[in-house]
């Protein structure tokens, strides 16, 4: 089981950040690598079990399923159904938590998955830096006050 953990401090309250990231269909709005996204079967994007299908800017297609969404804990958990990456049993959670001594939040994004042992290092880097950290970096200027 491989594990990726990425985190950052965002200059906004968790509620404010949550307004941007809670929509399971919003990746094109706040990540640099998703070109377009839709929810399959015309389901609402906050219905647990719904599937998003999105196109990456580099042309690949990914299908992911929403497994859990909590407006109380500010967490979103999902799994990969299909992707260009050689991973299986991929489950990821994006979470926001308040930093109470200032109007900031701690954002974490972690994933566990199975892969071929020889691919693990490259996949951990690709997902950690190329996806999670890149998305946080893209999100930060949107929160600049």
């Amino acid at each position, binding site marked *: 089981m491989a594990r990726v*953990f*990425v*985190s*950052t*401090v965002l200059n906004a309250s968790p509620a404010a950040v949550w307004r941007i990231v809670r929509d399971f269909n919003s990746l094109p709005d706040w990540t640099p690598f998703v070109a377009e996204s839709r929810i399959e079967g015309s389901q609402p994007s906050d219905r647990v079990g719904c599937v998003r299908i999105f196109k990456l800017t580099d042309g690949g297609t990914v299908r992911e399923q929403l497994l859990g969404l909590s407006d109380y804990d500010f967490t979103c958990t999902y799994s990969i159904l299909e992707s260009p990456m050689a991973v299986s049993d991929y489950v990821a959670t994006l979470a926001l*938590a*308040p*930093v*109470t*001594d200032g109007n*900031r939040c*701690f954002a*974490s994004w972690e994933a566990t998955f199975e892969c071929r042992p020889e691919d693990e290092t490259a996949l951990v880097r690709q997902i*950690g830096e190329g996806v999670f*950290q890149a998305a*946080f*970096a893209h999100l930060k200027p949107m929160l600049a006050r």
Partner: protein
Amino acid sequence: MVDVRESTIIDAPSADVWRLLRDFNSHHRWHPAIAASHIEGEGAPDAVRAVRNFRLADGGQLREQLISISDRDTRLSYCLLEAPVPLHNYVAHMRLRPVTDRNACYLEWWSRFDPPAGEVTAMVELVRDGVYRAGFAALQDWFGGVPQQVKPVPLAQSEQETVHPKPRAGHARGIFVESHGGPQNMVSKTFDIPRPGAGEALITQNFAGVNFIDIHTRTGHFNLIRPPAILGMEAVGRIEMLGPDAQGIAVGSRVGYACAPPGAYCSHRVMPLESLVVLPDGLSDAQAAASLLRGVTTSFLTREVHRIGDGENVLIHAAAGGLGQLLVQVCVALGARVIATVGSAEGLVAATESGAHHVINYRRSDFVREVLDLTDGRGVDVVYDAVGAFTFEGSLRAAAIRGHVVSFGEASGEVGIWDIGSFSAKSLRVSRPNYAHYVDRFIEHASTFFTLIEKGAVRVPDPTEYRLEDAGKAHIDVENRAIIGAAVLRI
């Protein structure tokens, strides 16, 4: 049932912060509300079910039990067993998570408890502000790596507005403590120049040394003066006049002293001849005022309290302080292998320059573990601990079997009450020397110290100079560790 949940970002690697927090017996080292802490019984400080016993800064007592700890999740939980406040069913948790895009971590501290109906707000504020937020501020300070901020101590109105009177001819000036208390209670006044009696000399003083004992004397922690009285244990100057039957020393000689009773923060003082030592040429007046008391202390600590043997492992706390720098050099000169602890990056430099073989920043790492690693698990033969509350428990753990812990100061607070039965686990010796009881050999120890200076084995760093009238500022800086090394008053 109420919830209190607080969180912050600490600018240090989570591994470093966790190393401090996971020690269930560490809160007294950093939390301002905790004066002393020990683990009850024989338990390890990271064993689930360990009970820690706090003495609070306000005098109260608190017992808490560790109920879960996980190095994997960097998280621990504890509950309150006894407290002076009604925090019923109090269970608290601390969790640390790394911030991966910078060298920082996210710390959460939260709890649930049942306060009595009328005291909900008071108890929530106590826990949130007095415990968690105050703890966060202290941790940020601890890991900030910057010297602690000098607390603004308002000087008394009169002190700010008074133009210090110029001494008239025939008058001496001195710093008087009007009543026990803060530095604002120190006032500059003039008085008649005293005349020497039989076997005494009048000294025109150039510099007075500032020592921690002066601060304890000012506050009344040590009962050495009856205010109004002049502070100060050591000074240097020239002999102005000799009393009847005063022989063996000439008028004009450059001399110094370091002993009770206090009274050194002044321009003219009469002292008995047997308390005076003639200063060597290689030592300036300022250096002598900064090092006489410390040099004599260093000498009796390493020759009488514990006789340092060649090749002994020695642990010296606060090695960047005025005394610490001398103690490191003397122990190195006596052939010891010296492990030093310091609390800042500047301290690392100072202790390294003093010749310490290993220097540990106790704010950055667990000094006990490092000492054990450096001594193949054996521990050190002797610990010189003038820090007190922060370090004493660790000093006991860092000492070898039949090791000797010399506690000769309490800069961070009292070491607390210990069961001497527990010392049998390592046949430890613990000494608590008092300068006053070793000063009978003052001349001998001063000479030993001067010899080391003349041989070049000990170098006295230049102290930070303050005007005599700024003695209050010197006290504030010394108390807040805002300066490296010693402080002296220029008279």
